[in-house]
């Protein structure tokens, strides 16, 4: 098994096997929305890439732009949003492609699973039909054979008595089962990239582990790449080869997962890791990063107001993303090669 279940204290994950050809290249991605006070820049100058078969974890707190980054890969940024920069997928730039090209890509080459399995499915359509729909659109299957395929897919994601469940409506399934069904739907056309937007956040801890295992297992079978979004470092430690830490719409640290956990360099990443509870140590209070996330004016480092290391330069100029060590990128004035 190429991927192992690895907590942060156990053996590090093997380095990404396939950085050879990268499937997805995101260059200088920006997402902005028109508001009454002018344009609000939700994501700024974001760069990353995902290799074939690789899992990238994007970590950051609520409001840091993780979800908008994912939606921009699907062309599903809500109305009023503008996407700039480049999203190269399989050699072509997705940013300015036509609605028709987006449609043929969505659900076939890039598929997405969402945070809320309770509301992500149509309440008045059977689970089987909702899965079958993807197959009729992209693979031109007849309704009947698409439904049979849907039953097989439900079985593949570990849903018991799939024949019955396919005929059930979403409200008849538990949260975990619904998320499994969503995964079945996403994987119906064997996508090259799965975008998972906090797929375990709304689930019980035991179910979370099952869903993570399922994603790992399916990734191994299909060799797809995964972009996994979460605010939970513990979750990402279990499946990501590489981690991108985001703060206030910008990437602040980008490195292989084991480097992030063994040697976090950005003060924000250090803070995030320090907030993780350690079962071996008894403490009265868990660590908290002081302050709260604010989208700040364009000048200076966005984390400066919460950073204990901040000095004049941090407030004055935005730190560039530099390769501080081999394959370890950090955007911080206080961390230099």
């Amino acid at each position, binding site marked *: 098994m190429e991927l192992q279940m690895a907590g942060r204290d156990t053996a590090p994950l093997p380095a990404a096997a396939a950085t050879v050809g990268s499937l997805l290249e995101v260059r200088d991605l920006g997402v902005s929305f028109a508001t009454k006070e002018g344009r609000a820049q939700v994501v700024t100058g974001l760069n990353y890439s995902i290799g074939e078969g690789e899992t990238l974890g994007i970590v950051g707190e609520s409001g840091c732009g993780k979800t908008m980054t994912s939606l921009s890969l699907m062309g599903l940024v809500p109305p009023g949003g503008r996407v700039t920069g480049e999203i190269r997928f399989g050699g072509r730039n997705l940013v300015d492609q036509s609605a028709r090209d987006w449609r043929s*890509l969505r*659900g076939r080459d890039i598929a997405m699973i969402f945070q809320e399995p309770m509301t992500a499915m*149509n*309440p008045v*359509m059977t689970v089987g039909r909702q899965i079958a729909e993807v197959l009729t659109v992209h693979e031109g299957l007849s309704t009947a054979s698409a439904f049979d395929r849907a039953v097989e897919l439900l079985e593949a994601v570990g849903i018991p008595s799939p024949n019955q469940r396919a005929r059930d*409506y979403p409200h008849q399934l538990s949260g975990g089962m619904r998320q499994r069904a969503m995964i079945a739907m996403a994987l119906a056309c064997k996508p090259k990239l799965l975008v998972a937007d906090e797929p375990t956040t709304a689930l019980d801890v035991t179910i979370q582990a099952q869903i993570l295992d399922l994603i790992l297992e399916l990734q191994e079978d299909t060799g797809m790449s995964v972009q996994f979004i979460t605010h939970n470092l513990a979750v990402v430690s279990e499946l990501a080869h590489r981690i991108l830490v985001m703060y206030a719409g910008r990437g602040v640290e980008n490195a292989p997962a084991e480097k992030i956990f063994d040697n976090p360099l950005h003060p924000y990443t250090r803070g995030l890791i320090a907030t993780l509870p350690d079962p071996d140590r008894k403490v009265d209070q868990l660590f908290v990063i002081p302050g709260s996330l604010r989208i700040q004016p364009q000048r200076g480092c966005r984390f400066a107001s919460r950073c204990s290391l901040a000095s004049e330069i941090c407030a004055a100029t935005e730190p560039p993303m530099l390769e501080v060590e081999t394959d370890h990128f950090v955007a911080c004035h206080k961390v230099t090669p």
Partner: protein
Amino acid sequence: MLRYVLSRLSQAVLVIFVMSFLLFVLIGLMPGDPIENMFEGNPSLTPELIGQMRELYGLDQPITLRYWHWLMAALQGDFGYSSLYSRPVLTVLGPALLQTGKLLALTLMISVPSAIILGALAARKPNGLVDSAIGLFSFAAISMPNFWVSLLLIILFSVNLGWLPASGLPMTSDASFWLELRHLILPVMVLVMFHVGPLIRYVRAAMIETLSADFVRTARAKGLSEGTVIARHAVRNALIPMITVLALSFGHLFSGALVIETIFGMLGMGKTIYDAVGNIDFNLALVGLLLATVVVLISNLLADLAYAYLDPRITL
């Protein structure tokens, strides 16, 4: 399901009983006297004779006792005579109900689908050009009094163009289908305007809400076309809350039909009840209003059944 229907029907029977008593009392409180009305202007009518007539019709008895007599007769299928038409009330109300039924059925067949289509179109781009145009139309439809619209349409289509009849639908059953249809076009147009205005606003609001739902995003993420997303995923979900609005609007539509029937000279339920009240025809007014109650109760029951049919989360 069957249990639910039976329990709802028994509730409906109770409501009809209560309504019949309330209506009986209310009609009894109306100013005017049926006897005086009957023999109005007859100089040979002495107070003694009036007294005798009252006794004969039981009008000297207390109202509760009168209600009791009426109820006992009604339970045996005898709903009494109409003093206005000198016929059993049911033979007056039967054709009237049929007439109004045709009017309302045609109206609903046009207003509901057009409200869904226009509301969904408006919701695609809120505050866009299409939305503004549809909004203008629906506010105009809401604001214009229906009797005024009727008169305008009569001036245009009946007087100036001479295409359609303004009134005079023969009440005989041998009126041909086409003749009847020609008479129905104008009143149906007015009622559709009357009904569709608020409905469009409701559909639009429900569609805007549904289009921002997570499952619509999922549908888009599957690579479905926008038309499929709207028709297959959004509309059905948006329509479920619309059923309540429709059921409630039905009573409203029924009362709207009164004005329309009066203007276009159609002897439907509304006009019949109106005439009965104006002419102090106790029986006809009472039974007519009860019949209207029954129709509204049935439409509410059908609405609840439609809910269960459209929404798998609801079991009866």
